[in-house]
């Protein structure tokens, strides 16, 4: 399994760079992952989504869909796409250090 080094520690990731062990994620890693995903600066709005992803993963074992994010994270679908233009659910999951969500919706 590949590993990537974030904030000075090596973490196991899958072929697409998603964390396979979310417990290894720490907040200081997020900025670096975001930059690699094409997001230069993480704003407070990004962080609302990132923390929500972590909470949902902890509660349900999988990341939320864009629809769920839009309805319950406090950030609308429109804004989600402004914050994460390359796909909110997947980009936010990567930055939040959780496995890739596999929903179709």
């Amino acid at each position: 399994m590949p590993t990537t080094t974030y904030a000075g520690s090596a973490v196991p990731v899958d072929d697409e760079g998603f964390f396979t062990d979310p417990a290894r994620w720490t907040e200081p890693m997020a900025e670096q992952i975001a930059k690699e995903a094409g997001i230069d600066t993480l704003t407070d709005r990004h962080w609302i989504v990132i923390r929500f992803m972590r909470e949902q993963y902890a509660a349900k074992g999988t990341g939320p869909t864009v629809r769920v994010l839009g309805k319950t994270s406090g950030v609308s679908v429109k804004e989600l796409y402004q914050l994460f233009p390359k796909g909110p659910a997947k980009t936010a999951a990567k930055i939040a250090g959780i496995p890739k969500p596999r929903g179709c919706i």
Partner: protein
Amino acid sequence: MADTATIEKVSIIVSKGSLEGIYPALIMANGARAEGIEADLFFTFFGLDAIAKKRWEHIKLATVGNPGLHLPTLLGGMPGVPDLVTRYMERKMDKLDIPPIPEFIEMIADTGAGIYACKASVDLFELDKDDLVEQVHGIITVGEFYEHAAGGQIIYT
């Protein structure tokens, strides 16, 4: 990340007005945006029902002439059966977090996907812009559709 070919843009043509004609197109457009792929939807012929205010809440599953349903044609044609089967399907979709068509169209528009109506079909059904939902970006000709679609993949559903 592996260097593989990627799809950057899709234009999806929706020409059917049945539940099973519309949903796959919506799911594929929404799924494209979820992957960061640019997406446009082009509603033509009976596909216009999906974005026509008076019709979009009355879209049904085809219970006649739909072999995929494995329902005798005679039974599928009986009064009330299309509604019953449609409601059953909608309940199942709701459990999978698939939104109803009006909400789905709104969500897809919010993802930044373009929603277009075919001018020939709008004329054919004697509709105008006010008959269509507000998320429609424009009523465009086939030629204009091809201009929008240039450089991407075209999917016909």
